[in-house]
């Protein structure tokens, strides 16, 4: 696992990146990008989440494949829930009451 200690500079770097992204996402929301607003907001959120997972939670530095497997499979299951539910909701208007 994360036996080697990471430098504190890197932690500050990640922190600054997270702060900047927060300000960016709050400001971009006021610009009209059409449907892209949602996309951008979620992309930035995902970038922030990735930074936290990879660096603060040390996933980038772990030799353990299992941790990554756990993360990926839980996200996969979440997407199963979302997409298969949407499969119903997005096709209901096609009729057949």
């Amino acid at each position, binding site marked *: 696992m994360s036996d080697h200690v990471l430098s504190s500079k890197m932690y500050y770097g990640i922190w600054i990146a997270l702060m900047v992204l927060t300000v960016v996402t709050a400001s971009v929301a006021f610009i009209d990008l059409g449907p892209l607003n949602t996309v951008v907001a979620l992309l930035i959120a995902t970038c922030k989440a990735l930074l936290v997972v990879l660096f603060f939670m040390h996933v980038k530095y772990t030799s353990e494949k299992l941790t990554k497997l756990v993360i990926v499979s839980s996200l996969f299951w979440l997407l199963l829930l979302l997409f298969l539910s949407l*499969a119903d909701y997005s096709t209901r208007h096609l009729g057949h009451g």
Partner: protein
Amino acid sequence: MATAAITAEREHYLNKEYGIRSWLLTTDHKRIALLYLMSITFFFFVGGFFALLIRLELLTPAGDLVQADTYNKLFTMHGMVMVFFFLIPSIPAVLGNFLVPMMIGAKDLAFPRINLLSWYLYIIAGLMMLHCIVTGGVDTGWTFYTPFSTAFANTKVIEAGLAIFVAGFSSILTGLNFVVTIHRMRAPGLTWSRLPLFIWAHYATSIIQLLGTPVLAITLVLVVFERLFGLGIFDPTRGGDPLLFQHLFWFYSHPAVYIMILPSMGVVAEIVPCFSRKRIFGYKAIALSSIAIAVFGFLVWAHHMFVAGISLYSAMIFSILSYLVAVPSAIKVFNWTATMYKGSISFSTPMLYAFGFIGLFTMGGLTGLFLAALGIDVHVTDTYFVVAHFHYIMVGGAVMGYLGGMHFWWPKISGRMYPEAWGRLAALIVFLGFNLTFFPQFVLGYMGMPRRYWQYPAEFQVLNVMSTAGSTILAVGYILPMVYFLWSMRYGKIADDNPWGAAGLEWKTASPPPTFNFEEMPEVTWEAYNYDEIPAPVEVSLER
């Protein structure tokens, strides 16, 4: 528990410490397994009592034994108690708890204190459920369908929901413990391809517990919030969609069926090779099919909703996916059967239960094909056909496997043999009673008798009488083992360390095992189910 006669020579987990504290504060997985055994047995008989009352009410077409409201509470609490307080913890929390560390050559589960915590959570949940039952009960059906449960039922929905929430927490912690233990605590040399199939089955089960249960938890939380604060997420009068509740509910509750049946399949995969003296046929296929069932099981939930008002197209998607999950189940059945080919087959009690399991699970699985077929499902869903189908899976499958496993490992757990003749008799009674109870319900269902009916048209009576008659036989079949298991703890023959000549690490230690399972930590150099290398034992005699 154990008597002084045998404890003089050897110390083991049962006689190491005495007193109530040594049990209630234990972190020994074997003792926790016994705590679970006692608590789930209690709930099994509570649920069974409700079942008998239901069957008695249905003896006549008129609603004459109990009031309609009482009847509704009976089937609701029968479902909740049996599903959440018996079936889901049954094999994992009792046999799994006892055996998983031993089968992989570990001293204990990875988190012994969390293991104890999960038993306490179960007990808290159980007490909440009991309190709910004695102070008025709940009448929503175990499915909690909205808006009935949120806006119309005036029974103890919140309490029942919270009880199941807590029980779910307990189930999650058990699953988490198993996954970590299986990954991190295996004995040297015990590679994944050498793991007993019981372990594979529990691994798959744990995946479902970990990823499915939280969705049920949040769904119940939302139902509780809706009742307490009037949120309106599932309330159609305020723009909510009651079908969203059903989607979220079945996302857990369909895979939950596999939480019940997969461990049972694991038990059968241990019993069949042992009593056939054979390596298991197609180890890899059975192992991977457990994982496949765990994954595919999450893709099929809306087949419970074909007439609920979901879109035509999503119904078709879920129907075709439902057939995918049938394939790994079919593989298992064929491979177990093939394992017996050219074996040396013994008719000991555990094997009789395994026969029963294979037969009844096959019928339950095949009638599942009916329900996944859209056109048939429209007619038979919400009728007794469904009731019969899931009892074939959950009682014919899961409970048969559980009883088979209890007999198979009882010598290891208690250090005593149960009376073999009584064991075989009970297995036969359970099999006959079960079929008499539930087979007529398939016919009733196709004739159109809806489920959860307190009174019914007269032409359904003959079949209902058969079913009720069967249920009393079934009750005898379930009480018998409890009686002779208790009897055997004092009077049973002392068991050898390995009375069945079985493979597997749990048989390489003493019966009952010492507190840390092994006197010497094992190292595995052999493949699983090496029955070609183990001599068959002398047949257990039928005396007594």
